[in-house]
Each structure stands twice: as C-alpha cells, then as structure tokens.
C-alpha cells in the first residue's frame, strides 16, 4: 500500500497543467480550409459521442442528469475536443489518462484494448466517475483515443448511492485502478464485467451504462477512421495539433490583455460533518505576461470524512473558473487551453489529499476552489465574474431494499447563481461545475414506489440583494411512502451563505428538513437518516449573492420582482426601501 501514495505523478505536490506538445510525425503544411473543416469535424465527433452516451444509458444519473462526458484525445492523451457536458469531468481527463499510461505504456496497446480508471489516488476523481479510453487505430497505427466518463449510480461501498460516514476511500466503493484491459476478453461477459457486476447493487443499470460508454467510444473511433480516410492521417494529426494551438493562442491573447498581479481570496465548505470547523480553501492567483498560476497554499488540512478533493478535481474546478472568467465561450476547451495554466497545492491539504482519505463529496471543496479563484479574479476583472451562488451539489440519495432488490434514487440539485455586472443571477439552475439536468417528476414517480415528489419550485426571498440580485434557490419536497427508507445526503452552504460582491448582500442558506408527526427534524449538511412512511422531506437550496450595492437597483426591476413574487413586498422594502405597488 505504501507505494500507492507516491506512485501517481498527477498527484504530486507541484503539478503543472502544462504538457509537452504533440510531436508531428511528418511535418504537414495544413491548408487553412482543411483545418477549418477538420477542427469542426473533431468537435462534432466528440459531441456525437456525448449525445449517444446519454441517450442510450440506463441510470437516471446519466440519462436524465446527463452526468457524463466525452472527448477525443491525441495519441499522447491530450484532450483535443470535448462534448461540453460536465465541466468538472473535462478539465482533468488527460491527467486521468496519464495515470493509465504509467501502468501500461501506449506502445503496448492493441486494437480492442482499453484503459479504465476511477481511482482518486491514481489520477481519478471520485469512484463513481469511471473513465474509459479506447485507442483508435488507423492502418495499424495508433492515432488518437476516444474517451468517456459516466457517473455510475452505485459502485458498492458502505451504503446505497453514497456513504456519508465512510472513513476512507475503501468504504466508498469499488476501486478500479488505472489499468489496461481487452474488451472482448475482459468485458463483454468477461471477468472484469463479472467482477464489477458482483460489486454493485443495481447491476441492471450500472452495467448498461458501462456498455453505453463503450458504444460511445466505438462511435468516436468509427468517425475518426472515416475522417482519416478522407483527409489522410498526417493532415488529421496536424489539424488536431493546430486546434490545441488555436485555443492556446486565443487564451494567451486574452491573458495578455489583463494587468499582471497576484490576487488572494478564500471561500469555505461549511464543515466536515464531524465538527463545526469551516474547511477553508485559499487561492493565490498570479497572472504574469501570457501565463496564469493558481496556488492553494494555506488551504486547510485534509479531513476525515468525504469532503476531500482529489487532485484531478481541484485542477478541473480551477480550469473551469479560469475558462469562465477569462475567455470568451467560443474558445474550444482542450489541452491547448491548459498550457498557460499552472496549478499547485501542498500535499495533505483538502485540495490535494493523501491516500486513503474519502472523497465522495469532492464537488463541494471543488466548488470552493472555483469560488476562491473567481473571487480573486473579481479584483482584476470585476465585469467578468459573478457573486457567490448556491455553488454546491446537494446530493440526495433515497433508497429502499424491498422484495425486488435495491431501489436507489440519487439526484443532485442546484440553486441560484450569483448576480453579475449586467444581469441578475440565474434562478434555480444546476451549479456551474456540474450543469446537470433534473429528472422529470413524472419519470421519478414512475420509477420509484418508496416515495412521491410533492413539490418543486422557486423559493421567494432566497436571493441576495444588490444592483443585480442573485438567482433564487429551489425547493424539492418528497413524501415517503415506505418504512425502512434510507436517506443519505451531502449538501453545503448550510452554515456559510453564498457571498455577495461589491456591496451586494449574501444569498439564503441551504437546509433540509424532515416533517414527522408535526415536528420538524433538521438534517445536518452531511448526514444519513432512516425515514418512515409519512415523513415529508424537503430540500431548500441556496439563493445566489447580490452584485453591487442595492441602491443601484433599477426601480422597475424591483417592481417586477415583487409582481412576480420573486421578492416579497416586505423584503423589497427592507432591502431597497421600496414602497410602490406591484
């Protein structure tokens, strides 16, 4: 076990997101039109992989929430093009890939092989996110990889869906270390498939999602072979390299336009579920010339519960914040975008933990990395950032073991975005790093008999005030229909509310309540509770913080908020001195 800690380079204390450029095998002069055509084709292939993965998957977390991603890589594992689904997955796919290469060099791969990895201490994120990479061969030459990741509903562990009191990563489920397997031999009825099947609670859904990943990789492979047949391998490889260089050039040009400097900021996760101590994430963002670096020195030590953020997740969250704030949305996200960025964090901290710290709820600290970086950047590009929002995934797992086996419902919820320089924050959307889709109430109720959804809506007065207000939080209410129902959750912003910016006020706090026999039971932010028939469980997520002073808010915007019932007349009077009529 000792070597586990030191092995993966991706988790070393000073990891540069920089990677070597792709060595062109034969220098090809790339025609600008061929480039325009092929680069669009590469992005289209990644998108098609993503769409097909979601449409043919089995679990609600992939098919409805769309918690899955897809990308094309060059032969060295650099992301060339991606389907833009879940930002959290996308920043770190090449780090996860490289951990596989350390186990089995690329030269040893043969057609039909694949890499697989879900190990947080082997370059991965949390166990539920299983990454699969398929090499693409054209004329016996490995030219690229097709890769997909899906959040798997349940991969074993101590409790269905999630294990809030896990003391280490082993209690959180099955670890698939970075490795190479062969599809026909090891999956497709083979031993790896049998091993996974035996270790998960709802194989009918989980294994189906694995098949959807393999099929999406196969589609990416087929499309790349077609593209190579048409333009020739050297031209396609040159276009792949140029697509990355294009993003790099665009990003460096954007960086050059910002003044040099270092900006410090912090945000915190409420607590680790054991004590009331906030888990502070500190970021120092330094921009110099055409490069930018983020150092998380000063961040709190890793903790004993699942709020540790594996290195790949920290990198992803940081890149997502930088991409959102400093580049225009039309710059394709790929390895080239990562070249000007360096991310560092001391080992043993919340954002670069040592084995075997549990990591299931890693998105919460990842969001605080995102927030700390945005807050730091607010000091230099105030017109490009938003205030603190719900910025958490409130994960609710409601499961039941009945005659028909385990029934596991798992869904994550967002809330309000922070207000921005020009617009109010988005009301009740999923949070920026996950961007998941909700599951229709009718689909949920059709699928599960142990509860019924009895409410879903906006929470008036949940937004922070300001020149631009935050977005509203949302509520989701469940009536429990069976005794012995198991509820597990992690949430955040329960004690520390979303922050306002430039004089805007903070948004509302998140809470989960159980109404039982006329009493209200407060659920902790990280908790597990046995539910009974008749219990009413309600999540209230956070509203976003305001941006700018409330004095600057347009009277017609206040009047509209009151008329629509987003803000009560009373709150409007208190915050804005509003006395009009809706």
């Amino acid at each position, binding site marked *: 076990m000792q070597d586990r800690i030191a092995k993966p380079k991706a988790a070393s204390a000073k990891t540069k997101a920089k990677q070597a450029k792709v060595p062109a095998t034969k220098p090809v002069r790339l025609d600008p039109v061929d480039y325009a*055509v092929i680069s669009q084709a590469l992005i289209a292939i990644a998108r098609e992989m993503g769409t097909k993965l979601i*449409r043919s998957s089995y*679990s609600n977390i992939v098919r409805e929430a769309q918690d899955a991603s897809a990308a094309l890589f060059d032969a060295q594992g650099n992301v060339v093009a991606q389907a833009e689904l879940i930002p959290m997955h996308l920043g770190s796919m090449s780090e996860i890939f490289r951990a596989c290469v350390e186990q089995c060099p690329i030269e040893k791969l043969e057609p039909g092989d694949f890499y697989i990895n879900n190990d947080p201490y082997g370059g991965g994120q949390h166990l539920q996110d299983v990454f699969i990479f398929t090499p693409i061969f054209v004329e016996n030459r490995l030219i690229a990889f097709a890769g997909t990741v899906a959040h798997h509903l349940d991969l074993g562990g101590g409790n269905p869906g999630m294990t809030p009191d896990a003391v280490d990563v082993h209690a959180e489920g099955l670890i698939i270390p970075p490795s190479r397997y062969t599809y026909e031999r090891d999956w497709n009825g083979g031993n790896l498939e049998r091993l996974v099947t035996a270790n998960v609670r709802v194989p009918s859904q989980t294994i189906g999602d694995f098949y959807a990943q393999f099929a999406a990789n196969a*589609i990416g492979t087929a499309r790349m072979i077609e593209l190579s047949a048409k333009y020739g391998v050297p031209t396609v490889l040159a276009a792949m390299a140029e697509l990355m260089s294009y993003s790099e050039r665009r990003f460096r040009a954007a960086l050059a336009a910002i003044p040099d400097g270092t900006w410090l900021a912090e945000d915190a996760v409420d607590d680790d579920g054991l004590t009331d101590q906030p888990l502070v994430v500190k970021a120092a963002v330094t921009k110099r010339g055409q490069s930018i670096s983020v150092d998380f020195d000063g961040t709190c030590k890793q903790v004993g519960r699942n709020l540790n953020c594996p290195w790949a997740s920290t990198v992803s969250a940081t890149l997502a914040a930088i991409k959102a704030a400093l*580049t225009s949305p039309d710059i394709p996200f790929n390895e080239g975008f990562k070249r000007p960025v360096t991310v560092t964090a001391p080992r043993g901290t919340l954002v670069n933990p040592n084995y075997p710290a549990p990591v299931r709820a890693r998105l919460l600290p990842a969001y605080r990395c995102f927030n700390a970086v945005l807050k730091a950047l607010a000091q230099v590009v105030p017109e490009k950032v938003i205030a603190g929002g719900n910025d958490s995934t409130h994960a609710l797992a409601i499961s039941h073991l009945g005659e028909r086996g385990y029934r596991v419902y798992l869904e994550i919820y967002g809330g309000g975005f922070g207000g921005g320089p020009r617009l109010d924050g988005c009301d009740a*959307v999923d949070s920026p790093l996950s961007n998941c889709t909700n599951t229709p109430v009718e*689909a949920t109720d059709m699928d599960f008999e142990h509860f019924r959804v009895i409410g879903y809506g906006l929470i008036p007065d949940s937004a922070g005030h300001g020149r631009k207000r935050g977005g509203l939080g949302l509520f989701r209410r469940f009536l429990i229909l069976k005794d012995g129902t198991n509820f597990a959750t992690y949430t955040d912003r329960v004690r520390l509310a979303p922050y306002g910016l430039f004089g805007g006020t903070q948004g509302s706090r998140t809470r989960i309540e159980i109404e039982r026999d006329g009493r209200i039971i407060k659920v902790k932010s990280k908790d597990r509770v046995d539910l009974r028939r008749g219990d009413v469980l309600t999540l209230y997520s956070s509203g976003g913080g305001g941006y700018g002073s409330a004095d600057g808010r347009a009277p017609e915007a206040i009047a509209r908020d009151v008329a629509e*019932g987003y803000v009560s007349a009373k709150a409007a009077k208190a915050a804005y001195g509003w006395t009009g009529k809706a």
Partner: protein
Amino acid sequence: MAWRIGIDIGGTFTDVALVDETSGRIGVAKAPTTPADFAKGVLAALDLAMRRYRVDAADTGLLSHATTIVTNALLEERGARAVLVATRGFRDVLELRRSSRADLYDLFQDAPKTLIPRRRRFEITERIGADGQVVTPLADAEIDGLIADIKAQDAEAIAVSLLFSFINPTHEQVLGQRLRAAFPGMPVYLSSEVLPEIREFERTSTTAVCAYVGPLLASYLERLETATRGLGLPRLYVMGSNGGVFEAAEGITMPAMAVESGPAAGVVAAALAARQTDRLNLLSFDMGGTTAKACLIRGGTYDTTPEYEVGGEASGNRWMHGTGHPIRVPVIDLAEVSAGGGSIAWVDRAGSLRVGPKSAGAEPGPVCYGRGGTQPTVTDCNLMLGYLDRGSLLAGDLPIDFAAAEHAITEKLAKPLGTDSRTAAAAVIDVVNHAMAEALKIVSVQRGHDPREFALFAFGGAGPLHAAALAAELGVADVICPPIPGAYSALGLVGSDLKRDYVRTLYMTTDKADPAAIEAAYRALEAQGSAMLDRAGIAPERRRFVRTVDARYERQSYELSVAVGEGPISTNAVAAMAEAFHDRHRQTYGHDNRAEPVQIVSLRVSAIGIIPPLAVRQETAAPGTQARKGRRPVWFRGNREVDAAIYDRARMPTGQEVVGPAVIEALESTILVPPDWQATMDALGFIQMRRHEPRS
C-alpha cells in the same frame, strides 16, 4: 382546369406558386412581404399571380399557406397574455425547465424568458399518482377562487397542465369544463388534449406555447381566410411542421403544429420531386439568404422528430439546445445551419476565418447590392469568383457593385489572412460549404445512411450555386435542380397530404403487454383522427392511419420511434415491435440487448387525408433554341482560373447538355457547373447534374 395555389411568406418576398392540376404546369409570382399585416402582401402576390396566369378563383381546388407567425411571435415576444394552472406544489415547473444551462462556461447565459410569467401561474389542489389513481381529489371548492384570479389577470388564453394527466385526464377535463364555461370564447388548452405524454416540463411547455400563440394565430388565420374567401378562393390550409397541411380551424386547437411551417414546405416539395422523378432517395438542400436546411428523403418520404425547441439561439453554426421553448410535436427531421447567401464572413482575433452566424439579411444585404452593406457575405464571394454576373442579377432588376464587393473582401478578409482576394473568397465558399455539408451529414451519416446512395436536390435562391461542391464533398454523384428553385418551396404547400399526429402515453413492457389494451388505445387515437378528417370532408377511401410506437429499454429515458405493422395488435405484433426496436437501437447507438424486455412509452397515430398527387413541370425552350449567351472567367479553389460558358436557363431546350465549367443563369437562381460536371435539361424542366469523372 383546376389550380392549386401555395403561398410562402419569406423574409423579403411573399411567393405565390401555382400548379395546374391537370397539366402540371407551374407559375410563380412575388410581392414584397408586409410584416405589419402579412395578409396585404399575400393579397398583392395572389392578385398578381391570378392576373398573370388568368386564374379564375372558382377553378382553384386547393389553397395552402406556410406561416411564420408562430415562430415570429415567439422570437419577438408578441404572444398572448396567457395564464397557467398547475398541480399544487408545481407552479414553477415551466420556469425551472430542466435545470441545466446551454453554455457551460458562460456564467451569464440564462434560459429564455418564460412565456407565462410567474404572476399568471396558479396552483390547484389535486394529485393523480403514477399509476393513474387519484391520490388527492380535485378541490372543487378552489375553482371559483381560481376563476376570480384569472379574471383579475385580464387573460387572453388559458393553459392547464396537471401532473400525470396523460394517464388520467379527468381532473384536467373537469377543470377545463368549468374554465370554458366561465370564460366563453377564450381558448383553453389542456395538456391532456394537446400532448398526453409523460414529462411535465415538456408537456407544460408545449401547452404554454399553444396558449401563448393561439389567439394570435387564430386572428391571423381568420383575417387571411376572410380575405382569400373574398377573392372567391376555397378554404385555407396551413402547412404544419410535420409536413402535412391542416385546416385553419384545426390549427387553432393545436397552434404548436404551425411552427417551422416554411422549412417543412421545402422538404415536402423535395419529396414531391423524389416521387415524380422516381429518384426516391434524395438529400434535400434548401439554401436561402440566412440559413440552409438539410433533410433526408428516403423512399420518397421524410422522417419527423418529436423533439424541438422554438425561439432557440444559434451559437457558431449550431442551434443551441436549451435556449428555446421545447415543443413535443412532430417536426420534420431537418438540420438547419446559419449559412446562407447573406452570411457574413470575418476573421476572428486569432486569425481564423469564420462565416456567420450573422447575416446581412435583406437589409442592408450583401455589399454588392449597394444598399449600404460593408461586411463581405457569401454572395459577395460568389460574385468575386465569377459565379454570379458582375453586371446585374434578377434579370437586370438588381444592379451589382462588383468593385465594392472586391474592396470589402480585400480589406476585411484577404489582408488579415495574408492572401489575395480570390483565394479569400474561395476559402469563404469552402468554409460555408463545409458547414452545410455538416448539416447534410447530420441528416444522413449520423442517422446511419450513406450519402453516396442519394442524389442532392438543391433549391432555394442560393442552393444550386453550392450544390456541386457539396456533392463532391459528400461523395454524391448526382445533383438535381428543380424549376423555379427560388420559389420551389411554395410548391410543397400544394403537394402534401392533410395530416395530424396524435399521441398517448401507455406504459407497458413488451413481455407483459396486453395486446387488446394497445389496440384499444390505437383505436381511440384513430377515432380522433377520423373526426378531424370528417370535419375536413375527406372521403373514407382517401384516409390513412399510420401507427408508430415510442419505445426504449426499461431503464433508459430517451425513446426511439419504430413503425408498427398493419392489422390489429396481437401477441406476435408486440413481439415484432420489440424486434424492430432492437434493430433501431443497434442502428442508432451501435449496440442492443435482445434479452431485455422493451418498454413501450407512447403510441402515436398519424391521421392522413390523401390529396391526389401532383406532378409539376415547366415548359422548356423549343428545340434548337440557342441558350448559350457568352463566356467569362471563373475561379475555383487553388487559384484555378478557367473560362466558363454562360447559359440562359429559360432558353434551354429539353435534352440540352452543358459541360462544365459553365454557369446557368435564371431569373432568381444561378447554377454552377464546375469542371468535371455536366448538366442536362430534362423534359419537365429539372436540371440534372452528374460528375463525369469520378474522383480517384
């Protein structure tokens, strides 16, 4: 003599196309579109057409219309003051949407404004369970208060969307009755009537779209029909997004059907040509001023898709999912890209050449039109390369400023790219062709069809100019350009059947399905269709009902639609449904699981009233007519200058062959015949192009 008349309202012109049913002879007339009151432009074009072709209104058998009113009302936020009634606890379903945002890394991107704002959304106590049983009875005592609330809102239309009404509609029906009684004359849309299908957001959104545009569509169609009846013309039909026409009155009950009416007409016209020329497999390619539309015609017909968003935004060359209002009605499965003659070419900050999505539109239009445009467009580049006449277009009606176009291309494109103006212009054409080829691939390759097995059918004002290059890009050997390409879409209006689609969600797995229940559900849908066809006066022998089923594997959530065989549903028929589903799944996603039962989700019936088929033709010139009118240099990629023969399409007799490089000019459209291509005029006025030297 009996005429059929199609009216297609475009951004710039209102086209009226006429077909003589017996001879197939076609005619066309254009008048400027009148956005303030579309009926004005329609009447002007009709008047012109009827005088020009000496049409007696009494001899008109069919009058049909493609409307943009629904799409425009949504884009311009000009819909009705609608209210929405939802199940208690679910007032905000319409606003919460599906919670994800369209653009990941854009912190400011938000969903479109809700069609029915929160102050006009109400709740009523009631609940139907997932099994269709009443969990909470409808609170009768609340209805009077609800009516008072709606009155206070000064509403113009009402939408009702309650949970699980697709399984048990009784609560919606009772409430609907009370509301209709309380608000006589006001349209009340029940989600169980509009779309009895699972997924509350999509069902509510579709119902809300109906309420939002219903009153506007109703008054528009009534006004237009009054005007056309005033000319003595027959009842007015409207083109639906599913490719069938419906009666104006029917459309008012389901306004969401009238979305994408115009693009649908083009596809129907292409399908018409497929059957007429016996080229049953076509790639339909319709390129206008701002967008290009691609659709696959297979076996002489097209597919529809059940998912669509109206009022969505474009990003780059893609329409972004999540930026519009979803409607769940069948829409012809076409791919649309923002690439047209007016698309603006530009060089981005990193030095990359881009085309669109901005368009110069009709005003100011391309630089060469001399109406104040300064940004080089695709049309300017076509002119630069010699594909369009340097002197004038539209038979001299439109003078051309070549020097201005050349200047714009040099300054805005060639200099930043470090090249010459012709190379830059050729690059623009290649980039825009690529975007359009992508659209053609989406409807062919991505659906599992090899484009090489299809002929490219090119129309729209700009389509025939780009057709050969696109065909080469896709490996397609044949191109067909119809007569009157610029107004050809309007012919689709008079060549389609009457059609309306009905759907009902019925949850059952194929291993436990009750064939009798499925049959009964289909019969109920067909009864609704029969009633619609009765109202339209369609004789029984001209009626057809097509059954399909939406199915998936039990744990999936996206359905695939598969055809259901003829005859009553039996155990065998259910097994055949499952087989067809496995096949379709493998074809679409690359894998299937035959051991697994198949989940039936929704049953669909298309009720069709068959309108006698139509064959169109345009007189060709008399044999021996001299069609060649000169020569001019044209440029192709790689800076290849060649001398091309210029032909006048109107003077081409049947059988005339044109060997590329050549340009065939017509009133409202130009055909480019590149080197290696050869074009032939057929007896019906269609020009067939073929590559005579297959690429190695």
